[in-house]
């Protein structure tokens, strides 16, 4: 199980090249799929990225794509591209289980708009990938089913909550996966797993069929090995949808047009509040090197200030938990999912189904949100958080009058060890400092590899744009990527046989 073993395989090619070869008849969708399934089978016992594989259905889908191409049809930009879906994206007939026991047995009666578009573009989903339960977590340790391990170092977390989609890509089984990002849940695992992750502008991608966590910030986006691959995946899912009333009707700009045009002349804001002393030494070094790399690529670096950054985590953990406490009220054992046996009354059914079905972190967040919305505390917490959010929005608007794009590290640290933060929820929350502002304000943000720390773990830069400036964000990301050297080459250190004293759940 080495990175070299995957090199030269079909599934190690770029998304565009896979689709091109399949469309041109130089490779078949079945060949690519078998390659993906073989690589996944090889790494999965160590990594644990998937909750379920859909091999038979994927083979049928790949065979249909090959048949369509044989009949002279043009299939789409993801023709035959195998991919992983986070366990909160609905595909009819399958369980979107949110890695939660409370959704045991639930079968989606419809398909998410984003997933419909992926299928229409020729994609071949191979399975549902692990996550923190209901997307609540930054390590994937809060899954109700299994721990997913970081392909670079198997004793460490892949990040979260889209830890499964991130690990599936980083381990080489699929070139592309899709997750959801509410406060950093695509970008942070992409950062910790050494890949690219993108959260679109709020309203750019339909949320129809995504199981809701915090509806005012949830967005679906791609995780991939390169900026171009992420842009291809994003372009497929973006666009208006009548089934999500918050989905914008604006036309989608093709992010691949001009993606190679570079960043000469762009003003890139470096955030003054990124306090190097709050970063691990390697992260601080990487941060300054990233700014130098952007400058070498021709960008003008300007310093901007968003003083309310320091409040981002507090604002986020009030607003997101308030929304979650309302959204998760629907899981009560009545209409779908798990129902506790033998409850003597309706009220007991609710309480016991929820108490048995939800894990500790989900309960903590429901409790926190319920508290912040409760009589006597609403103004002091929810109201206050909304007020500080408006301040943050104004400060970000002001920053964007001085620059075109804003950069920060994606995460203050590299991947931490499994179990290291699981007893301290607040310590876990603090890793979301740089990802929560773009979520709260609804801005597009790209996380991309920026280097390695002294332990050989990946570090990441985040590029944030103005609303609907996706194409510009991808162009800057591509320029940054092209100005450095990066290969997703997970090292698979600390395999099961080499680990001792690492808690395994």
């Amino acid at each position, binding site marked *: 199980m080495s990175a070299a073993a995957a090199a030269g395989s079909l599934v190690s090619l770029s998304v565009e090249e896979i689709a091109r070869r399949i469309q041109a008849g130089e490779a078949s969708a079945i060949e690519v799929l078998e390659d993906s399934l073989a690589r996944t089978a090889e790494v999965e016992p160590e990594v644990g990225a998937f909750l379920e594989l859909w091999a038979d259905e994927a083979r049928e889908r790949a065979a249909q794509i090959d048949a369509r191409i044989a009949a002279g049809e043009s299939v789409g930009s993801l023709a035959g591209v195998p991919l992983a879906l986070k366990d909160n994206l609905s595909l009819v007939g399958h369980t979107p289980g949110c890695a939660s026991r409370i959704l045991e*047995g*639930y*079968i989606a*009666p*419809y398909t998410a708009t984003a997933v419909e578009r992926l299928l229409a573009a020729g994609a071949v989903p191979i399975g549902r990938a692990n996550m923190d339960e209901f997307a609540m977590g930054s390590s994937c340790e809060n899954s109700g089913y299994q721990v997913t391990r970081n392909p670079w170092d198997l004793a460490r977390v892949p990040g979260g909550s889209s830890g499964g989609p991130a690990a599936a890509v980083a381990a080489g089984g699929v070139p592309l996966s899709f997750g959801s990002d509410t406060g950093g849940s695509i970008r942070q695992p992409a950062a910790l797993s050494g890949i690219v992750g993108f959260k679109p502008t709020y*309203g750019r991608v339909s949320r129809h069929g995504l199981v809701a966590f915090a509806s005012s910030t949830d967005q679906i986006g791609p995780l991939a090995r390169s900026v171009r691959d992420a842009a291809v995946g994003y372009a497929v899912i973006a666009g208006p949808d*009548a089934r999500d*009333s*918050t*989905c*914008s*009707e604006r036309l989608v700009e093709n992010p691949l047009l001009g993606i190679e045009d570079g960043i000469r002349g762009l003003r890139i804001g470096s955030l003054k509040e990124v306090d190097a002393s709050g970063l691990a030494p390697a992260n601080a070094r990487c941060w300054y090197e990233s700014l130098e790399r952007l400058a070498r690529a021709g960008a003008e670096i300007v310093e901007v200030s968003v003083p*309310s950054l*320091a*409040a981002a*985590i*507090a*604002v986020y*953990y*009030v607003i997101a938990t308030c929304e979650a*406490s309302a959204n998760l009220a629907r899981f*009560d*054992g009545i*209409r*779908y*999912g*798990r*129902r506790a046996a033998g*409850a*003597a*009354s*309706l*009220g*007991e*059914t*609710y*309480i*016991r189904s*929820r*108490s048995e079905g*939800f894990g500790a972190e989900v*309960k*903590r967040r429901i*409790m*926190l949100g*319920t*508290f912040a919305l*409760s009589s006597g505390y609403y103004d002091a*917490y929810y109201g*206050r*958080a*909304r*007020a*500080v*959010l*408006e*301040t943050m929005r104004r400060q970000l608007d002001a920053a964007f009058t001085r620059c075109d794009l804003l950069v920060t590290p994606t995460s203050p640290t590299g991947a931490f060890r499994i179990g290291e933060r699981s007893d301290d*929820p*607040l310590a876990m*929350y603090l890793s979301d400092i740089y990802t929560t502002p773009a979520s709260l304000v609804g801005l597009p943000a790209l996380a991309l590899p920026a280097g390695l720390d002294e332990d050989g773990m990946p570090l990441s830069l985040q590029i944030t744009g103005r609303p609907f400036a996706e194409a510009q964000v991808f162009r800057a990301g591509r320029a940054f990527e092209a100005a450095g050297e990066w290969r997703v080459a997970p090292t698979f250190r600390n395999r099961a046989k080499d680990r001792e004293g690492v808690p395994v759940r």
Partner: protein
Amino acid sequence: MALTIEDVRKIATLSRLRFDPEEEERFAGQLGKIVGYIDQLHGFAGTIEPERSPGLPERADAVVPGLPRERFLANAPEARDGFLVVAEVKPSETEGS
């Protein structure tokens, strides 16, 4: 602010959750620490503004087909004759407690 065991019980009731004494203790500590962190919000400026309109068109006020009843009920833990089956609703449970 610190949270007491009583606070935790009250929030649990509102949340339709129940904890054993050991969990109540742990949650009081953890939530108290998190709320203590969140209290820093009071040191930041900001005024509450009316909810901003998202500026999106409204959907037509028209009847459209929803999920067929059978497909909806296929996920129900218990259903009979086209209805969900639930346990008895006790009078004490008919109002939010």
